[in-house]
């Protein structure tokens, strides 16, 4: 059962990934991306990382994709097709990507991963929250603070960059 779900999710991810980077309509690309992100969240669910999946859905699917769509609307007529892409470029892209896939996969297949049998730790929201705010060995208070500062800076930065320059 789980195997089948995983395959389905994988298929969704791969197919819509391809569509995202190849479709001519930009808005469609955004929508395909949304599917990919959703399927990713699904995989997180399968790992039993529910909080992460939720974050994925809210931040990525809910936030970023909406932002992207907004920007598309701000900069494009929705119906216009994207420009034709130079065949050379496509060829180059395919060759390097294909080569990359080949190289990485063949490396991976030659490598044996030692699966661990240790007991998984608590991945409840409660546990996550504790870990995030703890400053003990497995605590993440420092990155958490850093990220919050970063987000604040981003907010200000984004506003300043996008602000209309006053003549």
């Amino acid at each position, binding site marked *: 059962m789980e195997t089948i779900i995983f395959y389905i999710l994988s298929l969704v991810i791969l197919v819509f990934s391809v569509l995202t980077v190849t479709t001519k309509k930009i808005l469609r690309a955004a929508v395909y991306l949304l599917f990919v992100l959703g399927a990713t969240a699904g995989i997180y669910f399968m790992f039993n990382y529910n909080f992460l999946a939720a974050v994925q859905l809210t931040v990525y699917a809910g936030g970023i994709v909406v932002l992207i769509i907004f920007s598309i609307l701000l900069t494009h007529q929705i119906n216009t097709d994207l420009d034709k892409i130079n065949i050379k470029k496509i060829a180059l892209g395919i060759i390097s990507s294909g080569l990359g896939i080949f190289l990485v996969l063949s490396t991976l297949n030659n490598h044996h991963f030692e699966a661990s049998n240790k007991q998984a730790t608590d991945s409840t929201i409660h546990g996550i929250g504790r870990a995030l705010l703890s400053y003990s060995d497995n605590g993440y208070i420092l990155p958490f603070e850093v990220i919050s500062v*970063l987000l604040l800076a981003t907010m200000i930065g984004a506003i300043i960059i996008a602000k209309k320059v006053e003549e």
Partner: protein
Amino acid sequence: MIEGISIHHILTVTTIMFFIGAYGFLTRKNLITMLMSIELVLNAVNINFVAFNKYLYPENMQGHFFSMFIIGIAAAEAAVAIAIIINIYRNIHSIDVEDIEQMKY
């Protein structure tokens, strides 16, 4: 740990996804679509982190938290990127990456 699925399966999927993102980044001309490609790449990496966490080191949650922070940063990045894109569009009425070459030489 997903029943019946080895780490190789997951890594295969994410590898392909990663390079699809890379392909998109290399070929798309539109800045927004390039941004989307980047999101694909990031997602592939996120899944990898989680998978390694889950399969190889289940006893702590580093991969999990790493993914979370990446998502946070990705959000920030997207916000700034889009702000920049909009600004560029305002200035040169195009968001074609080939038109943006002020940084040459």
